[in-house]
């Protein structure tokens, strides 16, 4: 019974929204604005961490110098690399370990959209086994570089974001020349921001004779990690720490994601409070303009509960419309937007795309409904408390 009453009053409310189009629009636009900002800012960190965590696999491990947190600050000598490659737990192909000692550096290359200033683009020298270690890598254009030359292949995202990285281009860096011969993809992961070349060519240019940054290995099974770790810890000849690759890369997105999320939630939170005030205004106006109508309903025997619920529901409908508009706009404008930023933790560029995930959209719309609910609260109480006789007398 009461439900039918509520439903009847709600439909009446909703049908009369067009008559209050002006003030309803204010509330809808306000809430849509909050949702756009909320969804778009958080889609940045969603995209960023997707690239960072997409880079790793639990069946690979990365070995750094003990105490180093990033590839850039890690250094392992050639002798030590040879010992590390003997460790148990590493997959073997015949006699050779499926492992690559990489040299990871950064190289100054301008971004295409800021041609005047250079960016710290990551460059990785690899050994021949690298392609066996990292199974997700495939060339999509051109060919693999030849070892022993100054040829390079570039990741797909690097190819889109940085100048002079097309096939046939020459990357000029100080007195060095790198010839781009291929473009590769890596399931959308972090390597797609990188430039790859022969580790020995890179060592001579960066004056790191027989020195590497890290050793990446393929584990026999994900469980072999513990065997490898124990062996490395107990061997006095190696001074290294080992991490599972997926954990290592996702830990490197923490600072950035935390920063974006703090700012995103802070701004969207404050905007939300403002939007609640806006919704309060709209709903007060709605209630005021319908005073006589509400009085009539009450006089007809509709109880005050259903007046409250109907006002709240109207407010939430406005919120929901705002949420849908905002979410759709954010999705259309930002989903897949390609950009590149410097990861504070690694001091290197990361190319990524904004990701408006379904989860994010859901949260945005839920947030819009909450704003609508709170915005409707006070006006709903006011509507319920209207004394019937004076309400009926209202113009």
């Amino acid at each position, binding site marked *: 019974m009461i439900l039918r009453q509520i439903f009847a009053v709600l439909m009446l409310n909703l049908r009369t929204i067009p008559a209050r189009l*002006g*003030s309803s*629009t*204010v509330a809808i*636009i*306000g809430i849509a*604005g*909050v949702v*756009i*900002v909320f969804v778009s*800012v958080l889609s940045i960190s969603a995209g960023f961490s997707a690239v960072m965590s997409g880079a790793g696999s639990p069946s690979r491990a990365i070995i750094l*110098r003990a*105490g*180093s*947190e990033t590839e*850039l*600050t*890690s250094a392992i000598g050639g002798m030590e690399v040879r010992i590390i490659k003997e460790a148990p737990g590493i997959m073997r192909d015949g006699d050779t370990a499926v492992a690559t000692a990489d040299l990871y*550096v*950064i*190289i*100054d290359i301008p971004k295409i*959209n800021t041609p*005047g*200033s*250079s*960016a*710290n683009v990551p460059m990785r020298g690899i050994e021949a086994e690298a392609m066996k270690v990292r199974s997700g890598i495939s060339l999509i254009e051109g060919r693999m570089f030849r070892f022993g030359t100054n040829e390079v292949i570039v990741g797909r995202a690097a190819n889109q974001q940085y100048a002079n990285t097309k096939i046939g281009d020459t990357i000029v*860096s*100080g*007195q*060095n020349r790198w010839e781009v011969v291929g473009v590769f993809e890596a399931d959308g992961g972090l390597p797609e921001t990188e430039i790859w070349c022969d580790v020995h060519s890179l060592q001579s*240019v*960066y*004056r790191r004779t027989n020195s590497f940054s890290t050793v990446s290995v393929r584990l026999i099974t994900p469980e072999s990690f513990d065997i490898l770790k124990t062996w490395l810890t107990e061997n006095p000849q190696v001074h290294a720490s080992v991490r599972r690759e997926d954990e290592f890369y996702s830990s490197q997105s923490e*600072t950035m994601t*935390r*920063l974006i999320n*703090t*700012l995103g939630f*802070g*701004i969207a939170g*404050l*905007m939300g*409070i*403002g*939007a609640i*005030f*806006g919704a*309060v*205004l709209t709903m*007060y*106006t709605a209630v005021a303009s319908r005073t006589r109508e509400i009085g009539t309903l009450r006089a007809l025997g509709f109880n005050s509960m259903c007046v409250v619920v109907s006002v709240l529901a109207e407010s939430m409908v406005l919120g929901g419309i705002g949420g849908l508009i905002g979410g759709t706009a954010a999705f259309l404008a930002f989903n897949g937007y390609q*950009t*590149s*930023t*410097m990861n*504070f933790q690694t*001091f290197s*560029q990361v190319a990524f795309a904004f990701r408006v995930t379904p989860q994010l959209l859901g949260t945005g719309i839920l947030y819009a409904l909450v704003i609508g609910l709170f915005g409707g609260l006070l006006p709903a109480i006011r509507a319920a408390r209207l004394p019937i006789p004076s309400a009926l007398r209202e113009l």
Partner: protein
Amino acid sequence: MRFLALIWMNVWRRRVRTSFTLLCVFIAFMLFGLVMTIRNAFTLGVDVAGMDRLVLINKVTLILPLPFSYRDRLRRMPGVEVATHQTWFNGAYQETTNVLNTIAVEPEQHLKIYKELKLPQDQIDAWLADRQGAIVGKDLAARYGWKLGDRVPLMSSLWLPQQPWEFNVSGIYDGGAGVDKTQFFFHYDYLDQNRAAELRDNVGWYIVKIADPGQATSLSHQFDAEFANSGAETKTTTEKGFVESFAKQIGDIGSITIAIASTVLFMFGMVAASTMVQSVRERTNELAVLKTVGFGDGLILTLVLAESLFITVVAGGLGLLAAWAVVQQGDPTNGLLPIFLLPTQAITAGIVLMVLMGLIAGVGPALAAMRLRISDALRRV
């Protein structure tokens, strides 16, 4: 002035409506202030970066070192006032992930170039006298509760073998707005004598103070020519250009923040405008009566605009003030945005915007009120 009371009464005609409108505009400008602070933080202090300071980095990348010998070659070049170098130490405190802004410098030269670092003379003397001494920014000292004379162990993965490295806090520097107070400067000699032998005699980058900022471009070319065709070629920029280019690496934070600020102002400007429309519509009778008793068109226009301006300027002003107060509490991200302050230009822009918002919100209703024909308006009752 005579009509202030009238405006005041009109503003508070509907208390609830006015209060919520004021709150909306308040939040709009508080957000504006905060967003502009964030934007400024991401420019990494470009405002205090000197035009008379040039930065020389390795042409290949900042992470490759430059030879120590360049220092004396630079000092001999004409137009150079001070030439010194800095080296990134990558010192981590307590946890290996907690890397601080630690830089090895030549203390005397450093203070000569960075006059904006303020610390008492006795602390300077103590720093110069102690090879393990370091001066730390006020904010950094506050974050870890460091006091003068404290011993601070830092780990550095870059400069094995010795670790942890022990430092003494010789001084705590302060500085004006825009000076990064989270840095940690210590003696280059201490680093050089204790790092692995094959890493010695290399520095991170050079900072050169030039006598005439007008010559920045030509001197930059001269420096780069001096070291051309060597094993370590250089790339020279003004410090300002260097910081700007570094900020660009993070991305187009400028456009993102402007977009957010515009959304916010548009959203809440609509609320103010809608309030004004309703408020004038309700008062049609009154306005007609005012006109009947002889209020001129201009005066009516002014009265309505003044009401609208009152709302946006009072609430907006308080909003900016609130933003300022929040910003005074310091960086909310715990050290990621060291230069966290509300820039003066943003305050000026905010004031202009609140006046504009008041005018735009009020102009429609004000014109409607002005054009009101007395006979029509009075007949409506």
